[in-house]
């Protein structure tokens, strides 16, 4: 089978999928303090600059270490792409009728944007902020600079009249955590790495017989996911 995505990365990812061991490869240490490779696709909706942005962002939020690989290598960029390409991204289950007025914090999201559009706008705004601070787009920054920009978003330092960055950061963080911990059928949590990190056993979750014996001692199991029960 011909391999068109860079053989060393693909081998690594295939190893991730079949082995239970948490890889402690050179990749893990190399990721710290340097720019990481953007995720291999294919992508259904993310543009090239968005792919690069999300890869850099999730690698900063979820950096590689002994507990697991970087966010990109956990599949989180693929997860984000599929979510934004799907019905949720297109605004399913979102009341999108106008008029659109600026509300109080208590009134929640009031923009006319679908999640797909909202994240696109957030990427553009964050890159603009990054260029204003460091003269480079977010994905071209070093790790420490990327962390600084994300902290700016998180703390509202990057807010402007056009774009409230701190709610965007919250949305980005939530989407990233969903990508790390949702069932692997959605493209993230590759090899159940997020679940292994926490000690969450996943499926099938029938504990009536087990609970008494594990009342006050840790229960561990090789995690299983939806795919294991099809």
């Amino acid at each position, binding site marked *: 089978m011909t391999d068109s995505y860079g053989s060393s990365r693909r081998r690594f990812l295939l190893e991730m999928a079949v082995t239970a061991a948490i890889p402690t490869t050179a990749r893990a240490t190399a990721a710290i303090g340097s720019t990481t490779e953007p995720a291999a696709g294919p992508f259904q909706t993310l543009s090239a600059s968005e792919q690069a942005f999300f890869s850099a962002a999730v690698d900063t939020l979820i950096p590689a270490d002994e507990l697991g690989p970087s966010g990109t290598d956990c599949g989180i960029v693929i997860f984000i792409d599929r979510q934004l390409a799907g019905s949720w991204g297109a605004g399913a289950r979102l009341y999108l009728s106008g008029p659109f007025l600026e509300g109080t914090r208590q009134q929640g999201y009031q923009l006319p944007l679908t999640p797909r559009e909202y994240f696109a706008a957030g990427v553009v705004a964050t890159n603009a902020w990054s260029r204003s601070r460091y003269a480079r787009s977010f994905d071209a920054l070093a790790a420490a600079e990327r962390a600084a920009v994300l902290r700016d978003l998180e703390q509202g330092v990057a807010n402007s009249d056009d774009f409230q960055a701190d709610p965007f950061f919250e949305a980005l963080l939530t989407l990233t955590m969903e990508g790390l911990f949702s069932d692997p059928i959605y493209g993230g949590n590759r090899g159940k790495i997020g679940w292994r990190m926490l000690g969450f056993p996943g499926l*099938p979750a*029938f*504990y*009536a*017989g*087990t609970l008494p014996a594990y009342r006050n001692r840790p229960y561990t199991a090789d995690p*299983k996911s939806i795919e*294991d*029960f*099809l």
Partner: protein
Amino acid sequence: MRVRIGDALLRTVWAVAILFTHTASACADEAGTPPIQACLACHRVGPEGPDLGPSLVGVMGRKAGSLPDYRYSGAMRRSDLVWDAATLSRFLIDPQATVPGNRMPFSGVSAQDAQAIVKYLESLSAKSSP
């Protein structure tokens, strides 16, 4: 109208179950209810009943995962088991160990309860008309 013995047995089981669960002086618990009752939440043992799990009518001697009108998990369909006293007992004690990846939402029963359930299912198979 022909009365099937299976129906009468079922009615007795249900009557016993209801008797135990509505005893005024004590709460029902696993020791007080017949072991088969847990199965009746999802499986039917007669012409009527829930369809969350496959029908247990005629289950003894049946190839696992073979009823045409039930959506089994892949694991059950591929399992190559035939249900008899031994295989059923193993499955009831630890479903996931016996058929890994099957989707029966049940963590298992004691060996004693498994024996009681198997006995009941054997009697059902023996007496019900085809």
